[in-house]
């Protein structure tokens, strides 16, 4: 059983339309790096300089990683990771 990664619609064109892909166990930032090897371009949409971008939220199961150990949060087989681009703006 691998890590299940839920891909948001804005990034699904980088995953050939797949809503869910398999991720690598380990730290979240490692998972993003590994995802980029399978789906080039997805890494820089999610992270920059080893940090998750401000306007991207990542959940492990039900928890926002910002309230865990952020990029260093460890995911294991059977976990579900959700990538959720923020909704924001203003005049």
């Amino acid at each position, binding site marked *: 059983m691998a890590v299940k990664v839920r891909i948001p*619609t*804005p990034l*699904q064109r980088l995953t050939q339309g797949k809503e869910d892909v398999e991720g690598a166990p380990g730290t979240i930032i490692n998972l993003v790096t590994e995802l980029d090897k399978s789906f080039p371009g997805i890494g820089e949409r999610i992270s920059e300089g080893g940090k998750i971008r401000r*306007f991207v*939220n990542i*959940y492990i199961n039900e928890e*926002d990683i910002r309230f865990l150990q952020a990029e260093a949060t460890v995911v294991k087989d059977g976990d579900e990771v*959700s990538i*959720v*681009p*923020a*909704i*924001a*703006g*203003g*005049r």
Partner: protein
Amino acid sequence: MAVVNYLTIPKHIFDEMLLHCKEAYPNETCGILAGKGDEVSKIYTMTNTENSPVSYFMDSKEQFKAIKNMRENNHTMLAIFHSHPSSPAYPSAKDVSLAFYEDCIYVIVSLSASGGKEQPEVNGFLIREGNVRSVSLFIHD
């Protein structure tokens, strides 16, 4: 995902969206319209965590819950709405730069006419790679 070029919104949902925007005035607020195809059947009124009259940031926890709820109901996120308390119903530069959901219609509710006491101006847009295109909104009973 198929992109819709117009949106059909039941009047009670449209009215709930306007009420949510008026209640937040003079701050901006936001939410999600969900459904199938071009037909909206569910509204998620959300919290603007910035509590600001000039910007909004949808509460990410509420957003995550809404996404799960949409998935359970086999709904699609059709539109993202937010209010402009004192500017026209047209995307700002910040709106355009932060429009990550290119398949969604961005609905903007302007309350700039008399603080929203008069009928708000409501417009829909597709925003892709910095380009803004108007789309039609059909309101029905």
